[in-house]
């Protein structure tokens, strides 16, 4: 039904042609490098788009115009100009700090981010890392990022960074529970951990409709916890400007800081992308039962457009939350997680299991 835009035959054809021209190991190596470059380029381009979007959305919420000078009325070249500026900045090295860990920390953060990024299902047959435990791997890989934050905070040898890192670590470890439980809820609904199969399960209705009440609750829990995982307001106390200058990346400059910044925005995109995969049907088009003509037109839109469109919608939701709510204190953040969110997500998990067993979901 959705086979017009299936990427798998094309990719298999490219692979077999390359294997015909050269030995298999060389083909694998070249493909690996090409995929790596593709990930890097997508990463950079998406970061630029997201930063521009954040500035415009923020401006709209604060009744301002936002960037409008560089690159025409829309300020379209503002972010590329900032990128070039940050690339030319000096990378400062600190006295009395652990140089190796200081240099390593941003790479740990970006590694976790890229590993999860490559699990996103862009299209049918368009997933870079495909395994039958996909969604579990996403959770596992994203848990490395907090280590980079902790190391960055410690190795900078400054009290602001250390406080920021410990706050962020405590918060991320706590909220990983809620994320894990809400993902597990959807794994129970779909009966698989394979990301492509989770999307395929939603062929005749997105999970948020299929799982109705518990799925909706899991979606809200996921969005709250995902916001905390990405270290964004109202959970941005790790880098609360008024108290901690910039939190764990206070002492970083140039592209080292840029890596943290990139990872923050891409983690936002990844959080939204996984939310779309689990709840909003991934690359599946919107179908309304009974409207055959409408459904056929929707089928003609490629999956990748659906996926990116829905993801940007969820990104907008997260930005809306960010620019609406004030920042929480660290004890409030931890109380919210341990006393309300985690018991609630356990309850949702039980409800979903019962409904699945008794066939109360669609």
């Amino acid at each position, binding site marked *: 039904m959705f086979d017009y835009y299936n990427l798998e035959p094309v990719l298999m054809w490219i692979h077999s042609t390359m294997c015909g021209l050269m030995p298999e190991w060389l083909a694998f190596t070249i493909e690996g490098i090409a995929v790596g470059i593709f990930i890097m380029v997508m990463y950079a381009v998406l970061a630029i788009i997201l930063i521009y979007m954040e500035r415009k959305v923020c401006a709209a919420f604060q009744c301002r115009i936002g960037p409008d000078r560089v690159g025409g009325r829309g300020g379209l070249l503002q972010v590329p100009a900032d990128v070039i500026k940050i690339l030319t900045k000096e990378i400062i090295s600190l006295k009395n700090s*652990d140089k190796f860990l200081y240099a390593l920390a941003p790479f740990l953060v970006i590694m976790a981010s890229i590993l999860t990024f490559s699990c996103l299902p862009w299209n049918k047959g368009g997933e870079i890392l495909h395994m039958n435990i996909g969604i579990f791997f996403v959770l596992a890989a994203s848990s490395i990022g907090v280590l980079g934050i902790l190391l960055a905070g410690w190795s900078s040898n400054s009290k602001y960074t250390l406080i920021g890192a410990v706050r962020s670590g405590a918060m991320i470890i706590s909220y990983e529970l809620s994320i894990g439980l809400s993902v597990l809820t959807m794994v129970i609904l779909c009966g698989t951990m394979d990301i492509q199969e989770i999307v395929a399960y939603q062929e005749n209705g997105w999970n948020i409709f299929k799982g109705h009440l518990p799925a909706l609750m899991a979606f809200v829990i996921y969005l709250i916890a995902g916001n905390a995982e990405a270290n964004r307001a109202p959970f941005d106390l790790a880098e609360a400007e008024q108290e901690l200058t910039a939190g764990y990346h206070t002492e970083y400059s140039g592209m080292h800081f840029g890596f943290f910044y990139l990872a923050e925005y891409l983690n936002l995109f990844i959080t939204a992308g996984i939310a779309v995969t689990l709840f909003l049907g991934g690359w599946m088009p919107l179908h309304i039962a009974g409207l055959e003509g409408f459904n056929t037109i929707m089928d003609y839109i490629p999956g990748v457009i659906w996926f990116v469109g829905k993801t940007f919608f969820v990104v907008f939701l997260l930005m809306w939350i960010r620019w609406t709510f004030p920042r929480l204190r660290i004890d409030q953040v931890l109380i919210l997680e341990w006393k309300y969110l985690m018991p609630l997500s356990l309850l949702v998990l039980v409800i979903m299991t019962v409904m699945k067993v008794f066939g109360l979901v669609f």
Partner: protein
Amino acid sequence: MFSLFEIAFYAVALCIIVFSVLAVTTSSILRSATYLLFVLLGTGGIYAILGYTFLSAVQLMVYAGGIIVLYVFSILLTRSSGTMKYKIRRGKMISVLLTTLVGMALVMFILATNGFALNIIPQGVELPVEKIGNALIGTEKYQFVLPFEVMSVLLLACMIGAIMIARKRN
């Protein structure tokens, strides 16, 4: 000529060896934890090469994302001098070397008598999750519901104990 699997295996194995040596020879405790992280990531990589992606993700989640984070956290929260430069006496050094050699000889002996398990595991095939799940909570032969439940009771006891120790007295 090596196959791609073999090249990947040797690269990961080399990483594990280098970082495990670094983890015990470095003088900074936090660096040691970081090198240990790379060793555990490498172990996860070996599981992934074997096609046991579930265990690989568990390795990432439990060890890299859980235990190492706890280590780093406790190092950050406790006041440690940061360096671990100790003078080691010669007698201790010799006994350590002897123990290492005996351990190595034992491992070599077991490997030489039993051989590698290379042909038992199908290469490049992922183990399905359903199989693992059934093995974990099944009650038949080669299924492990009792150890699984005993383990969860143990963990619960650990958590209650930790809360008892850490809670405020009033």
